[in-house]
């Protein structure tokens, strides 16, 4: 048995027990990593420009498939969520948007888990969904 009984990634990715902030936390991680992989891929993809039109076109072909489009739509969604939530985090991490520290009264409702923050998270998720739908509609010409 692990001596420290750390929960490991499993615990990190177990949002069920906690609030939407915890979901936002791991979405932020996943989208960050996803974007990084996409970004690396994207740089590799564009480098084919240097090999001329043929190479570029065949590279484009790879992405102009249904899977490619869906993947791209995901990237759009990830990007929108990551950006939206990222801006929320930066504002919060600078200490804005919680009101003031004050004497807590039972039953305790932590003011850091306030509606403003929750709303921002929902909005980020909503925007991401909208952007994905828009992206899909453009790419599939509907």
């Amino acid at each position, binding site marked *: 048995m692990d001596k420290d009984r750390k929960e490991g990634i499993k615990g990190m990715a177990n949002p069920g027990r906690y609030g939407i902030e915890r979901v936002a936390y791991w979405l932020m991680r996943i989208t960050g990593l996803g974007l990084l992989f996409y970004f690396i891929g994207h740089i590799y993809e564009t480098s084919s420009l240097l090999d001329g039109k043929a190479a570029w076109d065949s590279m484009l072909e790879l992405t102009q498939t249904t899977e490619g489009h869906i993947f791209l739509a995901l990237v759009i969604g990830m990007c929108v969520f990551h950006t939206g939530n990222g801006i929320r985090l930066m504002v919060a991490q600078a200490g804005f948007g919680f009101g003031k520290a004050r004497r807590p009264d*039972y039953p305790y409702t932590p003011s850091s888990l306030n509606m403003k923050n929750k709303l921002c998270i929902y909005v980020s998720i909503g925007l991401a969904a909208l952007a994905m739908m828009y992206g899909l509609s453009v790419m599939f010409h509907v």
Partner: protein
Amino acid sequence: MTNTIDYDLIIVGSGLAGLRATIQAARRNSKIRIAVISKVQVMRSHSVSAEGGTAAVLFPEDGDSIESHIYDTVKGSDFLADQDAAERLCKEMPDEVYQLEHWGMPWSRREDGKLGQRAFGGYSFPRATYASDKVGFFEMQTLYDTCQKFDNIEFLNEWFVTSILQNEKKFVGITAIELSNGDFHTIKGKALIIATGGAGRIYSFSTYALSSTPDGLDMAYRAGLALKDMEFVQFHPTGIMPSGILITEGARGEGGYLINKDGDRFMKKYASKLMELAPRDIVSRSIMTEINEGRGFKNETGVDCMKLDLRHIGDDIIKEKLGGIREISLKFSGVDPAQEMLDIRPVCHYMMGGIHTDINGAAELQGVWAAGEAACVSIHGSNRLGANSTSECIVWGKITGDEAVNYIEKATPATSIPTDLVNMEEKRIYDGIFRGRGQANPYEIKQELTDTLNDKAYVYRNQTDLLEGLKKVRELKAMTWKHVDDQAKEYNTNFSNVMELDSMFRVAEVVLIGAINRKESRGSHARTDFPKRDDKKFLHHTLAYYAPEEPIMKKHPVTITNYKPVERKY
């Protein structure tokens, strides 16, 4: 199996008294190696539960005076307090409050930025310095955090101390069990401060933490130190039903009423001037009289109780100044004090008695001091005033810290640890208790024992009850309850629970015998068969010394300086 560790100063118990002593010693001399040993993790000591306030004279300009604090204390004690000790407490306390403030204590403040004070029972001036209603908690935090400044302090968390070792009439060390791994240690030291707190868990209805068992007192008692005035047990008027958790006196200090079945503030009959803010012994007796005369309520658990009415104080003030009790009553009883009255009943709350010490906290063995609730310097006599106990812990924490450092600085080289004592102790706890295979369930025995004290030595006492109580305790003691199921080494709380029970028997006996001998009513000790105070025969302290069969009881004079005993009226 035995490991030996070596320190200069050993402090057993990490409540307010223990930690204040620790800091004092640590800052006096950074070369002294200090061990703070506690059977709970250090900052989890019972002291965190203290709620209402710490008494000190801070505003002479507003009409308060040290003199008045001394007199209130002595009068509250029903003149059994040692008056020189009470004087010392009151004189040293103001500085201590400011010292705590400088260390970061979040005292509640007045609008002008100075410290706030509230009214408390038995005082002629509102002098309970408070921090919301979590005074003890914040004080503990301040002291524990301040300890972190020093590098010569070592905390031994969750070590259960079992005995005091002496050689040639001098303290040489202690034995202890490290709970996390079950190791048995002898710890060498030049000086010892016992700050093991009260023992209120010998009563089943009690405000104390579950860890407040008499093993600390018992360890001193077995080492030949006297226990003083153990018959005086304070019953706080307002323990909430059904848990017995304390509703602080501050609730009445902020204006709460006690109401009987007829809707009367019955305290007007018993203490027309101070009403609900009369000293605790008087209020508790009044409540029990009302209940006995049929003007009480019944809690839904079927137990008699009285009502505490805070509704007129208003939600805002309750939240600001009594947030802790609001949380407690909402959570544990489902009652919002701003909406409904609380069911309360007198509850075991404090032991005026403890290890016999002189005014410097020195016990009867060279190199040993006692401080806090475990000690009986005798400031509280037969009845403590609320808010005076945290004060005592802090002042005598400091005094004993100083005294112990003085002693260590000029101590002669340590004598060696007598191995026969260690072997005896090992035998006592391992052969006697750990390997015990008794028939009775020790937890049930403990329940019966604590219920017996609750029934027989409660607010009102009489000869028959007390004798029956003693008989019952002895019967229980004779049963084969030394039984430890759990034979594991690590974190064996079964083992420590049975050791605690073992100590309860000895201390409960001392309480009962003291109460039987004291044929008068004084302070918290109210005998229906002897309803008057008897200064001729009983204006003395009680001492109990350990003997295998039965304690040896002695008398000890009371120090009276300025205040002649008079009748106590409020």
